[in-house]
């Protein structure tokens, strides 16, 4: 049984904040397929397109038939624990700080035998449920979980090291004026967040009443960010950047003023927010139960490919996605995770003229919190976002024509 985590005591101001360390980062190109699956929470393995053999560890040719046509496919998650060990000594700094560490040999229902991190509630020689998760180096690893949910299983030290669970953590939501903020607050409260701070730009306009601590903060104003980061940067464990600026308009019929506003909020706002809060969070990723753990950017799925009716907005979203990926790389050494939550049209003022389906704030909040609990990097929230992701992966040109007329 997992011991439930207790709220962490207040930080001892006389104690040095531990320097973050990472598990081993290097992987072969083939193994990055596992990272890719883990980033979306999928349990996938290489499958030979010719003979169907399932491979592990990742390789460049099928060990059954030497075909080099290997793709990653989702696999059944069941497995049988064959052997286990509890490692008590390791030369790797990251694991030394987390000893003892339990791992096991699992015979997968999918075929291969793998080494996996073992959840504490997995019984000896028991059945397991496999998952691919990102470790603190941002690389995919295999985790063997209890076959059935167990009480407080998310509090297992292994899970805490892989996921970004909001429980006992302090969360900053950047834009209190976004229509999704109340639902985010509610979902984070339900998830056991220790504190929720909400940024509120332009308090002089009046502010909605929210069940959170309101901070004057405007992503277009570096001075306000510097001020708030000075006060709250050291106790922001999860930052959710939900700031965006959406006005319709493409290129010819669009408006550079509005496009610039969109860029100021979505793209440069992200950069300013990162410059203000990023360094402090990156320095606190090994700071105990409520260590800083994740940076969340809520982005339009049209960051991948534009809806031309909202060309300026989509350009800003693309720019934000690009900056976010750079930021992710810059956070890599700290282990701070950058999670994207991609959305299609959302249930708000600016999508009011659009027909359904539209993503409700509650559904977005649910997916976002689940993404944190699973430690994901890429979350596709709602049917439209999932659809765009799948079609983009299949063929961006086909998707482009379908979005711009030309698909019958």
């Amino acid at each position, binding site marked *: 049984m997992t011991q439930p985590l207790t709220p962490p005591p207040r930080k001892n101001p006389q104690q040095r904040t531990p320097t973050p360390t990472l598990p081993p980062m290097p992987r072969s190109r083939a193994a990055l397929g596992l990272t890719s699956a883990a980033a979306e929470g999928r349990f996938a393995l290489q499958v030979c397109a010719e003979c169907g053999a399932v491979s592990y560890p990742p390789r460049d040719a099928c060990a059954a038939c030497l075909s080099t046509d290997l793709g990653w496919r989702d696999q059944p998650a069941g497995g049988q624990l064959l052997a286990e060990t509890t490692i008590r000594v390791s030369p790797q700094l990251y694991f030394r700080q987390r000893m003892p560490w339990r791992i096991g040999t699992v015979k997968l229902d999918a075929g291969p035998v793998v080494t996996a991190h073992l959840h504490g509630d997995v019984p000896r020689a028991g059945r397991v449920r496999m998952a691919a998760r990102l470790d603190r180096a941002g690389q995919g690893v295999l985790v063997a979980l209890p076959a059935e949910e167990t009480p407080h299983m998310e509090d297992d030290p292994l899970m805490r090291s892989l996921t970004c669970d909001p429980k006992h953590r302090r969360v900053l939501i950047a834009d209190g004026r976004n229509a999704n903020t109340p639902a985010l607050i509610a979902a984070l409260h339900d998830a056991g967040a220790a504190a929720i701070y909400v940024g509120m730009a332009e308090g002089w306009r009046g502010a909605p009443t929210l069940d959170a601590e309101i901070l004057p903060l405007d992503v277009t*104003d570096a001075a306000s960010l510097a001020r708030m980061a000075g006060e709250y940067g050291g106790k922001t464990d999860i930052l959710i950047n939900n700031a965006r600026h959406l006005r319709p308009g493409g290129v010819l019929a669009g408006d550079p003023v*509005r496009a610039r506003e969109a860029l100021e909020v979505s793209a440069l706002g992200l950069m300013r927010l990162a410059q203000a809060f990023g360094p402090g969070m990156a320095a606190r990723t090994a700071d105990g139960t409520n260590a800083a753990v994740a940076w969340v950017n809520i982005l339009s799925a049209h960051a991948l490919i534009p809806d031309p009716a909202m060309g300026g907005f989509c350009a800003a979203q693309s720019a934000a996605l690009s900056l976010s990926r750079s930021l992710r790389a810059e956070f890599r050494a700290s282990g701070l995770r950058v999670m994207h939550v991609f959305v299609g049209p959302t249930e708000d003022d600016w999508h009011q003229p659009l027909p359904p389906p539209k993503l409700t704030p509650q559904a977005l909040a649910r997916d976002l919190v689940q993404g944190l609990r699973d430690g994901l990097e890429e979350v596709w929230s709602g049917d439209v976002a999932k659809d765009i992701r799948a079609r983009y992966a299949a063929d961006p040109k086909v998707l482009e024509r379908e979005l711009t007329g030309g698909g019958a």
Partner: protein
Amino acid sequence: MSVLEPLLAGLATGRVRVVDLTHTLDPDFPVIILPPEFGQCARFRMEEVSAYDHRGPGWKWHNISMNEHTGTHFDAPIHWISGRDVAGGAVDEIAPEAFVGPVCVIDCSAETDPDFLLEPAHIEAWEAAHGPIPGGAWVLMRTDWSKRSGAAYLNMAEDGPHSPGPSAAAIEALLARDIRGFGTETVGTDAGQGAHLTPPYPAHFLLHGAGKLGLQCLSGLDQLPPTGAVLIAAPLKIKGGTGSPLRVLALLEDA
């Protein structure tokens, strides 16, 4: 006989005081709010270009950005549709003499209704006390609204902002006196609910249609006497500009 020499002497002795009627340009200073589907007034923003560092070792400077109508600012006639055809109605075209002139201050600070409207009767009462408003005068409506901050400044409600301003009749009355321009301590020359007057936004519509100037977001009008001060409000010389942030100064002669 020199005119400027006694002025300079007065400045040197402190008999002539220079009073600043300007709000600090600050990213958090309110601007006018329009319905979201309209273009919006850009807030003041300032970004460091260098600060005696690797970006410029020996100097510090900023890039700033804002709307022409951000902070304490000037409205030129072409700001409003009624003034679009006013000859020389852009800030770069207005003769510099227009920026300096006598100032009359109508004190409405005792009014407690946030939707208070300045009416012709108030102007007549003021003239009864202080004499007629001279032609070419700046007329400022003192409300002490500049002492408000945060949400109290726009005083926004579900039905829009609530702040004092002039009625259409009051503006007509001032235009009849051939004033130079009209100024307020609120975010615009019009009342918060000015959209619901006839014509909508009467100060903007009537003043600029008549080629007159507007000053808004003025600060500290309580420092000015009803008459006798000189106001200096010179906008940046922006080509085709409809307005400009200002540093508004008043010269006061102590009795």
